[in-house]
């Protein structure tokens, strides 16, 4: 990094401290520019921080997040603004006037930035539309993020060991009657991962995954999936369960095994619903502030010419654009950073 570049006082605002946001911040800082990273939680790490394990290598995501956050904190070019949200935005000639609000103290401040990276991530849909699965009604029915938490508890020896677990894929996703016709892309793999983890923790437990298609397109993904089936003995049943019924303190899952064509039942202690991936509600509001387009579901749409750009001086990365796995989130973060650096290097 040479002297002259250090002298430039150009700043990028990164909104969202998940893997995509952190990666973008780190890379922009490597390019020699200043970064303000805004995160609404009290800790950076995003969704990744909540995960117990990762695919396709069974790594502990906390390790990776730990290294990244360390890098982040060591980097003098980056200012981390935790428990903060964007209050208002005014576009200027060469950037934005952004007011940040601290949700803990209530204090506000305004900064000048010359580019913005939106990395607000994704969330899971509200499952109350699925009365048949009884999420929020039966205590054993969890969505996949709640289940990651449960896995963490189990790994620490807390809670009752399950005798059987059922994981249901495509809850919400690929359901046009509920308004989510799209495939959420990551559920196939994380369900396989979760199923494998359960088998690791409790080899005696029976684990069933109910799927429609297994979409394992990615380096090492199919092998990962087959490992889960063949080595860890997780059973895959093709069919979307129709109903979860409480049954003597446990949960009875009713489905059709569409590969044999007969109705089947399975009793589980925990039923995990791989809920559809949806954008956070604040994403659309933020996008509006920065003049970025969103699609019909509220995900950010990209500019015609670039996959990381959504408006003038506005870029995005990770789950706010669509469901992504960790690897993709990181690449998208790097790609957005490259765009920012190119912009700053060019006409700053």
């Amino acid at each position, binding site marked *: 990094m040479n002297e002259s570049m250090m002298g430039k006082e150009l700043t990028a605002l990164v909104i969202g401290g998940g893997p995509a946001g952190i990666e973008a911040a780190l890379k922009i800082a490597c390019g020699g520019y200043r970064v303000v990273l805004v995160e609404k939680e009290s800790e950076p790490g995003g969704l990744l921080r909540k995960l117990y394990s990762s695919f396709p290598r069974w790594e502990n995501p906390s390790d990776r997040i730990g290294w990244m956050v360390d890098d982040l904190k060591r980097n003098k070019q980056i200012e981390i603004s935790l428990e903060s949200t964007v209050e208002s935005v005014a576009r200027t000639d060469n950037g934005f006037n952004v007011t940040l609000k601290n949700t803990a103290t209530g204090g506000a401040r305004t900064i000048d930035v010359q580019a913005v990276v939106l990395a607000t991530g994704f969330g899971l849909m509200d499952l109350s539309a699925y009365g048949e699965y009884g999420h929020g009604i039966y205590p054993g029915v969890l969505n996949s993020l709640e289940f990651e938490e449960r896995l963490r508890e189990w790994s620490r020896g807390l809670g009752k060991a399950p005798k059987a677990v059922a994981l249901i894929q495509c809850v919400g996703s690929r359901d046009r009657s509920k308004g989510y016709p799209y495939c959420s892309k990551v559920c196939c793999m994380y369900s396989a991962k979760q199923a494998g983890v359960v088998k690791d923790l409790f080899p005696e437990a029976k684990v069933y995954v109910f799927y429609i298609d297994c979409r394992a397109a990615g380096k090492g993904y199919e092998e990962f999936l087959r490992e889960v089936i*063949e080595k860890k003995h997780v059973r895959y049943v093709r069919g979307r369960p129709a109903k979860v019924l409480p049954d003597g303190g446990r949960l009875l899952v009713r489905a059709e095994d569409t590969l044999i064509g007969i*109705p089947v039942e*399975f009793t589980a202690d925990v039923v995990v619903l791989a809920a559809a991936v949806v954008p956070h509600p604040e994403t659309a509001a933020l996008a509006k502030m920065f003049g970025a387009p969103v699609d019909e579901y509220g995900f950010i749409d990209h500019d015609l010419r670039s996959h990381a750009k959504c408006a003038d001086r506005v870029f995005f990365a990770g789950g706010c654009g669509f469901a992504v796995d960790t690897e993709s989130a990181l690449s998208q973060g790097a790609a957005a950073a490259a765009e920012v650096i190119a912009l700053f290097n060019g006409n700053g």
Partner: protein
Amino acid sequence: MRERDADRVDNLDRLVDRYHLVENLESCLQCGRCTGVCPVANLSPSYNPRQIIRDILAGNKDRWLRSEEIWRCFWCANCYTLCPMDIPFPLLMMQLRYEALENRYGEKYFLPFRRFAMRALEDGLTFTPGGARGRERIMKLRGRIGLKPWPDISEKAKQEYRELFEATGAAAWMEAIKEEEERPVALTYLQGRITDAKKKGG
């Protein structure tokens, strides 16, 4: 009642693959190449190798032991030849047949083989013509075309062949199966047949 995914599936290895010849059943991708190439499945829809594997993985082995379907396999091994995961489906059939017979299902399908095997114990050769006249006819024919009237098989060979049957218990086991007793099997040949009115009318 509805089928329950049985509780016993975790001991699949012990339950189905007692001879440790089909250890990779779980790797089945359910792609259906086996069924596509199977000559029997092409004639009788209720015999579907892919579904049999799926059903056995779901723990419904007993249904198949009782079935008549497992006796339909021609053992042509086309399924094994084409299987992307190298699942020796014929060996699975074989083990199911062993177990079926142990439970005395489908004996009537075994009896013709038993007859052959019992005769083979005498001759050391299988598919020998039955009855004195058939024997005589074939011996004449062989003589005419310049072969020894009876294939060259030594007494030693016959003796050792018999002893192998006795040593493995096969002879006694086959002896014990009575011709007249048999337990009924379920399912029918054309079950699952799909028809089309348009075709039939035209």
